[in-house]
């Protein structure tokens, strides 16, 4: 399956899925359908608390900006590492919210982002190991209206700085674990927001991919959708073993690309 195929085929899957979902209301049935859609018959180990910690507020303060983080309790090594973390927000319009492709070069998994949450929902982080096995942790989050919330509190200010990027981090020391944040100014329009001027829905315009490299080596590639908040942000830990360039390249659904780098 190509890198983006899961997103491009998602709409069709959702449409077909929504028919089956109507028949049932139970949360487990919703998840059963989503699991089948995204992972087919693959086995997913539930309650993988020995491997993964998913942090999110129990009650989100602002449904359009819900900070979440995923940490691994085991190190990333060349032999055994988390290859992907899939984030699924069951009741969002596009439940499959993010796919973090992770390198063993990260040393550890400690990543954070900000998501929109449309209604009270289960949220899941599923770690896919390099051996292909799947391990899941989940949480219930109380929040509502994040996806259809107006695009930003000040759309004009947001559009004026479209594509502006920041790499935020303290002075890094070689060999020491460092926290960095890549954030790009982008409205991340969900396609669910109404525009008064055109009397129509604002077409979806969202960040599709964020590639983060250090010294020519890929650390994280985020495939994202409309569940990610305006001004998409990825915060992560990594350990630079030498001097090099930390580089982030962002591309969006209108095929626009933005990039920024920082010498370490």
């Amino acid at each position, binding site marked *: 399956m190509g890198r983006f195929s899961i997103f491009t085929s998602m709409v069709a899957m959702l449409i077909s899925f929504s028919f089956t979902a109507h028949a049932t209301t139970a949360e487990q049935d919703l998840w059963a359908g989503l699991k089948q859609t995204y992972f087919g018959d693959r086995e997913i180990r539930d309650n993988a608390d020995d491997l993964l910690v998913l942090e999110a507020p129990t009650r989100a303060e602002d449904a359009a900006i819900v*900070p979440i983080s995923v940490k691994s309790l085991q190190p990333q090594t060349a032999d055994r590492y988390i290859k992907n973390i899939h984030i699924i927000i069951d009741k969002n319009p596009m439940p499959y919210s993010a796919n973090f492709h992770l390198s063993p070069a990260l040393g550890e998994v400690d990543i954070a982002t900000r998501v929109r949450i449309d209604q009270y929902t289960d949220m899941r982080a599923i770690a896919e190991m390099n051996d292909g096995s799947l391990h899941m942790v989940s949480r219930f989050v109380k929040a509502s209206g994040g996806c*259809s919330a107006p695009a930003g509190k000040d759309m004009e200010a947001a559009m004026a700085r479209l594509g502006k990027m920041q790499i935020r981090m*303290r002075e890094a020391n070689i060999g020491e674990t460092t926290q960095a*944040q890549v954030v790009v100014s982008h409205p991340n329009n969900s396609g669910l927001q109404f525009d008064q001027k055109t009397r129509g829905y604002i077409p979806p315009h969202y960040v599709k991919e964020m590639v983060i490299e250090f010294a020519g080596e890929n650390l994280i590639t985020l495939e994202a959708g409309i569940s990610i908040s305006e001004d998409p942000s990825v915060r992560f830990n990594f350990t630079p073993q030498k001097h090099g360039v930390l580089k982030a390249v962002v591309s969006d659904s209108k095929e626009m690309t933005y990039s920024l780098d920082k010498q370490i």
Partner: protein
Amino acid sequence: MPLLILLLFILIPWSARASADALESYVIQQVSEGVYYHQGVHQEADSENLGAIANVGFIIGDECVAVIDSGGSFREGELLHAAIRAKTELPICYVINTHVHPDHILGNAAFKNDKPKFIGHEKSPAAMISRQQHYAKQFSEILGSAYQGAEFIEADILVTTDAPLRLDLGNRPIILTAYTTAHTDHDLTVYDVKTSTLWTGDLLFVERVPALDGSINGWIDALDKLIELNAAMIIPGHGTAFAREESVGWQKLLNYLTTIREEIRFIINDMGTIEEAIASVGKQEAEKWKLFEDYHRRNVTAAFVELEWE
């Protein structure tokens, strides 16, 4: 007043006696000559309080009446309408919405039969259309029968940020001013020239913790301008109306916003995280505000993602 109650008992069907009780308890206070408001309760909207959590009211001129915010439910709109009719038979020519948060606009439809001009900020139609589906779903559940009848009515007259709008209610000029992004991106204030009374909408919260849905920097700037106006009487969006001499009403909000801005900036400059900010910023403000736990962390979240781009 007894005559009014008697009238109501004749006019309103027996089954609606509870409504007359509600009207009796719907207290309207005079702030200045011809300027009245109902003070919202410091609670979250629910079916018991009819969503009447914001300050709403009216100004009576020689020729007509302007309503300023219509209530947090259709039912509150009806109560406000009846309260106006208890004071005057003059036509209701304007319904002014200071912004489109539900506690300020859900009573609009109760004034439709009066055929007033509905007035809002130039950005209020966009804000209303993009939110109304969500508001309708959420508030019809929260408010129950009190919601029934509510409509999202498009403004007839828009006020632009570059030019205040002057209206006359009959020997009673009022000035409507639209602001750039502050509490929301579409805040409007109303100033009654005759009595120097300023309706701030939610640009001012007194007692109740503010809710930031716009820009913290913009809000602080807007507050500075409003304080300079030096109005004699001030009716905040939430909390008790007060006279110029009691300027503490302004200062408390200004302190809250500047305090959390300063603390968030410190965390951002120190490369701290949004989670750290949410957990630590503004704790000392907790005891100063009602409903602090319900909105404060959300304010920090919103302010953080704004200040991140300074």
